[in-house]
């Protein structure tokens, strides 16, 4: 195994030549279908550069085969969803709940789920304003969060097939997503609204809330039965949830490994990709498990043997996923490593109880949702991450125009300051605004310098 390093797409292009043909042919998704050439996905970033993902020219990637596989898997999701449809599978869009309802969706046979919300990455990956402009023409301008890109995608009809059903979560979640769904409905998408109520943290009895959520799950289950023409099967559900639980444990294990004491064993962007697998398993639960298992094995090997990236010593927790992955690369260049994260997907972390009634178990897990509760709940999640990972500092990458950032950022910052944790907070800027982006870079530089100085002072 080669020394862990972060390399660029050029280096990966050449390195890829050494990947055995056998492996390129073997690694594929939808293994339950007859083998087709389109199902291979072990390809280097340069492939996706050619197809317009311009940011990949600037990013740094881990040099392991496991990371290559993860990237290939993530980048092929768009095509995969189309192939699912071509192969006669039902395609369910899930919006707004960020990973809580997908276990139920996948417990139906011949079905895939995907997250249109996640297209908020696309404008950044492509360094393009196309989808934002499209959303703008439909009424969602710059005062709406980046998730408006997914409305652009709904409108263009070129990013995913028409979903057989779109599960849209409303209520105690982002308003922006709710608006996107409402507009998508205008475009002819069949939407099932999943009402997520506000969770009173701490002081109230959760039974009523849990009962309410169970009802929501039952209703959703009925809609899925209608959409698929299949009956819900508790056995299949249990089987699916076992896999989902395995994935959740894997993700937790990998997250822990990222804090390995000797050196950072993995890049922050890869870690983020890995963590987001919890949302919809990138459209293939079984293959996703295989990808993450290989990824975990590598991380474990590196952590145990003290291998990792050199000169990345500042331990950081990242709060709110940055739509622009370049920012993560940049902090690594400045000597930082991301050892913890709070990406608003806490609902994807609990192990679902397979002994309970399915809907009760799902509701119980759902109650952990980051967005459902008060800002204080999220502040505590962040603090808990920081303490557990012994972080030197925190970076909050906000999203302008979202319905939670304007309110949450201030309390998170103040809670961290009270604990003496340095924090850098900024809003990610949309592609094409270079001057603003360089300001963020400058602030990151200053932040990393001050953290280094602080570390030195403390050591001395």
């Amino acid at each position: 195994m080669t020394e862990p390093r972060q390399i660029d797409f050029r280096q990966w292009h050449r390195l890829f030549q050494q990947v055995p043909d056998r492996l390129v042919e073997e690694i594929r998704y939808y293994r339950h279908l007859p083998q087709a050439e389109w199902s291979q996905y072990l390809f280097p970033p340069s492939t996706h550069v050619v197809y317009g993902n311009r940011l990949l020219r600037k990013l740094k990637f881990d040099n392991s085969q496991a990371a290559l596989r993860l990237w290939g898997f993530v980048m092929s999701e768009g095509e995969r969803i189309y192939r699912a449809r071509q192969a006669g599978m039902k395609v369910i869009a899930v919006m707004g709940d960020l990973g809580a309802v997908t276990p139920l969706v996948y417990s139906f046979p011949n079905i895939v789920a995907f997250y249109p919300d996640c297209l908020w990455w696309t404008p950044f990956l492509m360094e393009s304003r196309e989808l934002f402009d499209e959303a703008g023409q439909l009424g969602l301008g710059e005062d709406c969060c980046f998730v408006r890109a997914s409305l652009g995608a709904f409108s263009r009809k070129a990013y995913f097939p028409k979903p057989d059903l779109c599960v849209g979560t409303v209520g105690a979640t982002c308003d922006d997503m709710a608006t996107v769904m409402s507009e998508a409905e205008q475009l002819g998408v069949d939407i099932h609204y999943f009402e997520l109520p506000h969770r009173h943290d701490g002081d109230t009895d959760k039974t009523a809330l849990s009962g309410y959520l169970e009802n929501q799950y039952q209703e959703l289950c009925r809609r899925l039965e209608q959409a698929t023409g299949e009956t819900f099967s508790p056995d299949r559900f249990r089987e699916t949830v076992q896999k989902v639980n395995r994935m959740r444990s894997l993700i937790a294990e990998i997250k822990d490994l990222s804090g390995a004491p000797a050196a950072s064993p993995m890049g922050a962007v890869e870690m983020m990709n890995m963590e987001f697998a919890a949302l919809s398993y990138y459209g293939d639960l079984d293959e996703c498990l295989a990808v993450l298992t290989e990824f975990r094995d590598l991380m474990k090997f590196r952590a145990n043997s003290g291998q990792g990236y050199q000169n990345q010593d500042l331990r950081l927790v990242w709060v709110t996923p940055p739509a622009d992955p370049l920012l993560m690369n940049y902090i690594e260049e400045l000597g930082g490593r991301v050892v913890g994260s709070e990406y608003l997907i806490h609902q994807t972390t609990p192990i679902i109880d397979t002994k309970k009634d399915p809907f009760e178990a799902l509701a119980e897990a759902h109650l952990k949702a980051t967005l459902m509760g008060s800002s204080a709940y999220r502040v505590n999640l962040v603090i808990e991450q920081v303490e557990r990972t012994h972080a030197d500092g925190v970076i909050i990458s906000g999203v302008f125009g979202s319905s939670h950032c304007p309110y949450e950022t201030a309390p998170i910052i103040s809670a961290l300051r009270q604990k003496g944790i340095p924090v850098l907070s900024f809003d990610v800027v949309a592609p094409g605004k270079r001057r603003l982006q360089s300001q963020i870079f400058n602030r990151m530089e200053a932040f990393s310098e001050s953290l280094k100085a602080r570390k030195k002072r403390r050591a001395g």
Partner: protein
Amino acid sequence: MPGKMNPRERWSLLLIDELPDRPPVYPLVTCHAARVYNCDLIEYCTDGRILAEAQLEAQRLYGHEGLSVFTDVGIIAEAMGSKYHLREFEVPILDSPLITDTAMIGELGPPDPTTQGRLPVYLEAIDRMYSAAGDVLPIFAFIPCPFTTAAGLRGVDNFLMDTVLEPQAAHDLLDVSLKSAITFCDECILAGALPMLVDPLASGSVISRTTYSHFAKSYQQKLIAHLHRYDLDVTLHICGDTSNMLDLIPQTGADLFSFDLADVDSATDAMGDRVRLVGNLPPHGLLPSSNLSVTQGTNSIMEMGLKNPKGFVLSTGCEVPIRCEAQKLHTLINIGKNARYEEVW
């Protein structure tokens, strides 16, 4: 207008076996762009910045759905040492081939695309176009196939005779040409372009089916296999008459076939279930002097093209003539843009 796909989106759907709102419209606007941009061809062929700006300017004028990086088919042979002739207002042409004796072949190696010949011109052009418009427009780098490059290294007549008289030497030359093509393709990819393989000399107007099979196809196949390893969709363009070899084209592995003199229906019959077709209004129809009806010609091509099961790209059979009449090209493009597949959703 909301909901209108951009070229990148249209191509992406086509390449994963989904029908977009309509076929992409991609006439092969190459050196004609220099005329639109009002620059000398010599500048166009030697200055990546000018090539890029001219392509972008022509695309803005016509609104066709892809950028083309192409000056001449000798680009690789020149970088390897053949002398090409560059003069004002003219496309570079082979002047003196490098390999005057087949014994010299053994010393040949692939060129360094970043320094040799005009390969850096291509790379700069691609890089600039990709940065300027790569999010919405695919960029096609026209890469000469080994057969054509070998002819450029050896001289056309000599190489064609080699295929009869010294087949082993021909194969040796093809091997090194293949390596060169791969090296150059890789750099073009890294700059952001999708290689489009052109093999004008492997045309049915020049060589037999047998010669094609033995000397051209197998190298096209190897080059395509290299690109497929990276999951890239490859367009193969062969000029002239290809009607006698249509059935062999799928064996190259090409994902798209851009063709000149063969009708769309026969091409559909021969490969429509496996290969996307790109074609094929006769370029001379776009000349000011031509009285060929562009409207009629395009309509009939489009009608046949829409039926190709693997998808279709409306194009010209070969390069748009330098002196193409703008109005005629607009006509072709408008017809393409008004065509429709069934409603996407």
